[in-house]
């Protein structure tokens, strides 16, 4: 039995954590994630979960303790944002390289400096090559659904990799939304009990985790990690199918919104995709064949599938809520462009960097992107490949 609730993104993620009931949570507060760990701490204090909550003294220790707890054989979670994620950076690679199925909500916030507490994706994008699975959500409902599915995906025997469940800071984390959460027993049954194959707390069969791995083996281990990453897509789809059975909600690698017959489209991820849908609807009313591709699974990147979905367009704009400072555009742009190149698609692709440090993005601005795309189609000419949307001159 699902329940209709009105909760903020942080509150509903704390509910997801309560329902997952991890053995260990080690976390450190940081805006805009703070409410999530506060609410969860209350669940611990009230005995609503079996979790040992480790009140670590930093995010570096949060990830370190989570790695220890996961390697010990327990189901372990943490949550963070921005600078906290950056402080974890070294241990992110150790978590994925050690093949630990940790699930971590990340409440996306701009990275310092200068310091800013509001939404952009520079935190998660900085960690996109750390070997973690990355999900993005349009709203709190999706973030909640992603968190619960991530447990199964991460722990799947063909995967065994950690997951970052991203939700936009403030826009999703602090806004109250009407959404549905599953019944506690449904989640309990869906995630099941965690049984690690090899773990530290097994005196019958002790193991050594994190040994020195030199030229003779390191590469093979990295190769195994690459194979596991290759397996993620299939597992994401299988788990989504099963999840649909209990929730009625459908998930894929990405969502195609009015893309079927579209001539121009934008690609985006996170809460902006909701705004983009409104823009698409407005344009459709004016008879413009506009569409949207909303990325849910960003790492591993479903390149082939995304390219196939975009290949019949005349022009596409990729929206990035992060700058790479490479002069070649944002991270999602680079990935999508490479994917289109691989299938030799004849689609003009442009990039719009927007919303840094929580700068609002409005429906009209996305409509202006579509206007630019129409221009590209009409003239057959891209005037400006990399654009900055909503920034003052």
């Amino acid at each position, binding site marked *: 039995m699902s329940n209709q609730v009105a909760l903020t993104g942080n509150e509903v993620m704390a509910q997801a954590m309560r329902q997952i009931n991890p*053995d*260990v949570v*080690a976390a450190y507060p940081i805006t805009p994630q703070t409410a999530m760990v506060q609410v969860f701490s209350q669940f611990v204090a009230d005995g609503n979960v*079996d*979790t*040992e909550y*480790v*009140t*670590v*003294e*930093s995010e*570096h*220790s*949060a990830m*370190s*303790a*989570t*790695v*220890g*707890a*996961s*390697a*010990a*054989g*327990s189901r*372990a979670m943490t949550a963070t944002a921005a600078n906290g994620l950056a402080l974890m950076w*070294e*241990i992110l690679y*150790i978590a994925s390289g050690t093949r630990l199925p940790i699930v971590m909500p990340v409440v996306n916030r701009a990275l310092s400096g200068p310091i800013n507490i509001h939404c952009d994706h520079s935190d998660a994008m900085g960690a996109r090559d750390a070997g973690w699975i990355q999900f993005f959500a349009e709203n709190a409902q999706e973030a909640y659904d992603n968190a619960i599915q991530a447990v199964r995906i991460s722990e799947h025997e063909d995967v065994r990799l950690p997951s970052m469940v991203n939700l936009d800071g403030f826009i999703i984390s602090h806004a109250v939304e009407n959404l549905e959460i599953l019944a506690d027993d449904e989640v309990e049954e869906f995630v099941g009990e965690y049984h690690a194959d090899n773990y*530290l*707390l*097994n*005196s019958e069969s*002790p*193991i*050594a*985790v*994190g*040994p*020195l*791995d*030199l030229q003779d*083996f390191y590469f093979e281990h990295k190769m195994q990690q690459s194979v596991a990453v290759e397996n993620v897509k299939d597992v994401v789809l299988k788990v989504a199918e099963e999840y649909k059975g209990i929730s009625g909600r459908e998930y894929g690698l990405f969502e195609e919104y009015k893309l079927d017959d579209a001539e121009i489209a934008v690609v985006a991820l996170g809460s902006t995709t909701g705004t983009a849908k409104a823009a698409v609807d407005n344009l459709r009313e004016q008879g413009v064949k506009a569409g949207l591709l909303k990325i849910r699974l960003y790492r591993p990147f479903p390149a082939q599938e995304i390219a196939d979905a975009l290949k019949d367009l005349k022009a596409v704009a990729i929206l990035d809520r992060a700058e790479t400072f490479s002069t070649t555009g944002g991270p999602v742009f680079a990935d999508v462009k490479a994917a289109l190149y691989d299938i030799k698609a004849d689609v003009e692709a442009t990039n719009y960097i927007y919303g840094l440090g929580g700068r609002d993005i409005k429906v009209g601005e996305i409509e202006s992107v579509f206007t630019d795309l129409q221009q590209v189609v009409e003239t057959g000419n891209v005037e400006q490949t990399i654009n900055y949307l909503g920034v003052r001159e």
Partner: protein
Amino acid sequence: MKLKEAAKKEERLTGGHRLCSGCGAGTVARLVMRASDNPAVVGCATGCLEVSTTIYPYTAWEDSFIHNAFENVGATISGVESAYRSLKKQGKMDEDFDFIAIGGDGGTYDIGFQSLSGAMERGHDMVYLCYDNGAYMNTGIQRSSATPKGANTTTSPAGEVIPGKQQYRKELTDIMAAHNIPYVAQASPFKPQDLMKKAKKAFEVDGPAFINVLAPCPRGWRSKAEEGIELTKIAADTCFWPLYEIEDGEWKLNYKPKNKKSITEWLEPQGRFKHLFQEENEALVEEIQEHVDQRWNTILNRCGEL
């Protein structure tokens, strides 16, 4: 614990590791592990002990082992111990385990200090063992905050104008005592029974325990491999490395040299202090002696020996 009895116990850190001959880190770890009566999870910070004992696909540890990174063994074992408490509470396991985090002086006094402090403050039931060889040996003898004043290291070299390391050691054992944890001790491998007794107390105590042990490094100390343990005795006899413990806030001295020796007896056999015996550094040696005397007095005072 009787030495004879301890010698009969199974080795928990076995041969085949790649530590240098005469390395104190292995000796200290073996002695401490002999005091454990349960299966253990051993955590090791990056450093000589770690790189030498678990080279894939081998391990010299009979127990489960985890190496995470250089600066986080305190937090890592916190996580393992929390998992254990959680699973036990839920009735998912009932076996007893010991938890031990091991770091060199670099991984403990310096980069891992925050992680250690946090773990101790939170009260995890774990032992933290620091093997203090007075420098970052694994990366080629760079100074740490545990390096003795005047020592020649690769980042505090003795040069034409600067005679080695400029600062005195950080007194980490005191800092750990200030965490008000149930058990803190400073020990040395030349007194193996004392070391094992302390390790036993550390394992048995309910809550966190910290043991700081002097560990000779012939490479970094520029000393003879076969003289390492003897040097740790000289360290105690010169009062450079006093042996004491703090049990529930009570300070106790465990070794009082019959005749307190001059600090030069500690400095002279070690190549890292060679330059201190040049004429122009005479005053520096005197200053080091004064510092040791003062420190010794402080310890005597705290232990109620004055």
